[in-house]
């Protein structure tokens, strides 16, 4: 009985190991996406763009969790979607380069960059 249970555990373990590993966010790709998509648009439309070190980590986490852009009129996530990237890729090199990256991966990349570049992050980052 005990041997059989161990066998089941081994089988389930091997199946689990064969499944997809957790995505290891790429903060450098997040940095490029944030600066060339988020910052470039905010620079054009606002008097001062929002730098990663303008907020603390908890604020960034809460902002992305709430998923509200433009005072709730739209979602943040839409700006990480393939349709949005496709719509601007003719004029935006970052959108073109990352056109086929899965939406969630890009969002995780930018999250990683913002957590790192936040005012209380490991490497506070400005806009440039």
């Amino acid at each position, binding site marked *: *009985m005990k041997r*059989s249970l161990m066998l089941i555990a081994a*089988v389930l373990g*091997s199946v689990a190991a*064969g499944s997809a590993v957790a995505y290891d966010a790429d*903060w450098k790709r997040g940095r490029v996406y944030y600066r060339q998509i988020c910052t470039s648009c905010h620079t054009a439309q606002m008097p001062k763009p929002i730098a990663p070190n303008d907020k603390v980590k908890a604020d960034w986490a809460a902002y992305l969790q709430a998923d509200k852009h433009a005072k709730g009129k739209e979602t943040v996530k839409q700006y990480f979607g393939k349709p949005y990237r496709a719509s601007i890729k003719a004029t935006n*090199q970052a959108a073109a*380069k990352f056109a086929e990256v899965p939406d969630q991966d890009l969002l995780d990349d930018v999250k990683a960059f913002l957590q790192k570049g936040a005012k209380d992050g490991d490497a506070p980052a400005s806009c*440039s």
Partner: protein
Amino acid sequence: MRNSTTRRWQGVVAGLWLISAGAFAAAEIKEAKEAPPVRLDSTADHSKFKQLQGTFDSGPKVTKACLSCHTEAARQVHRTKHWTWEFLNPDNQQRLGKKNVLNNFCISISQNYPFCTSCHVGYGWKDKNFDFAAEENVDCLVCHDTTGNYKKLPGLAGHPAYKPVETPPGSGNMVKPPDLAKIAQKIGKTSRDTCGACHFFGGGGDGVKHGDMDSSLAAPDKDLDIHMDATGLDFTCATCHATSSHDVPGSRYKPTATDKHGAHIRGKMGQGNPATCQACHGNTPHKEKARLNTHAEKIACQTCHVPTFARGGVATKMSWDWSTAGQKGADGKHMTRKDDHNHVIYDTRKGDFVLGEKVKPEYRWFNGDISYTLLGDKVEKSDVPTGVNRIGGSPADGRSMIWPMKVMRGVQPFDPINKTLVMPHTAGNDDIGFWKNLEWEKAIADGMQNMGAPFSGKVDFIKTEMFWPITHMVAPKDKALACAECHSADSRLKGIDGIYMPSHSQKRWLDIAGWLAAAATLLGVLIHGALRIVMSRRK
């Protein structure tokens, strides 16, 4: 009963095996078309190595773990300029390197070791007795960190913080110690971020020293640098500075001003510096406008392709006047003044600065020869600046090209009796350092004593200048200099000897002679034509 239960479990197990085997078989069919996911940036996942698991309470302990596999790495590093901070110029036998030279920024490392050596690839260089032979003193993480979290703070002699440190002192800003194990488990190839951690911040701040290197190059766009463009070619520093055995080619102490080797071919020996433009582009790089290749015989690529420097949003220092240091605020405390762009233009500890963005370079003939004014070399105070370094070059030596330069101008302390430049002890929270105590005599005496150099006790200030060849921030070809930038009355190259440039190098007498000749020719043709007409009518 026990037997039947066992049989049931065995049935369940067999079923699960079948399901999983089926799943794997299906996966294999799929994998035949698509390879399974794998890290492509390295052949090793360092988080899997036992040596790097657990915690590390110091940098040297991390290095020992690295060296348990990479047995030759530290001794390779020991042979490089990044480790020794020394360079013997084979042309003039000057002993250079940060250990020996002066500059007109923070001046020198003498008695400022714990601060300056935050940019040394080692741990513990706090005074001149540093052990350069110790392998565990090599800092692997500073070049191989991929997390961006590894920081070596000024004042810690090349160590990262091992406990929270208030930086700068008195600011209330606490810098957390980095997680060395986590960083070690994620090490990888060098990057713009790792090289830039020092080279972007030379001279004591972002973009201060070089002008063509600052933090904007960490993730630049195409217009800022066509090669490093983060959404394009995405070159790292090592793409051009192709490194072998930890020795990084491309030196500012012995630069390659003219590269006649052409594009490098794999396997061919003795091709020279891999970091030159010609090493990839060859000596006739212009395919569409071949006429421009004649320009490339005498004009460095950078002259046209780096139209301005410091153009990524970070200002660079263009001059530094130490003679005005020491002024305090109305409250008797140290102070700073800023300009409209929020740049610090005066600091009690350092004097006055002039900063620049999008700066047009100055241009000089340059053949790669550089000599330095070293400690002990005689200098004379005058209105003509003393060259902290001097560049060689002329239109006639067959080795020179016209190069863009950042010329850093300064006023710095010197010894008017011994007539030498001096190395003051500036940094540090002690009773001597100038930045705290504002007493030149004491600070210079300490710095000079450390170097074993004489100091009369008298201090005066001398104008200096220093040349920094510009080579980064290469613009795309449509943003390179237009013809009229040089071929015009207000040419960028005005004052450069030995060249004749149409539309710039105008001589009035030659123009008049040319027009007269053209008019005479026209007149001759008209007279000849008229005579022919007249003669034919007579017939």
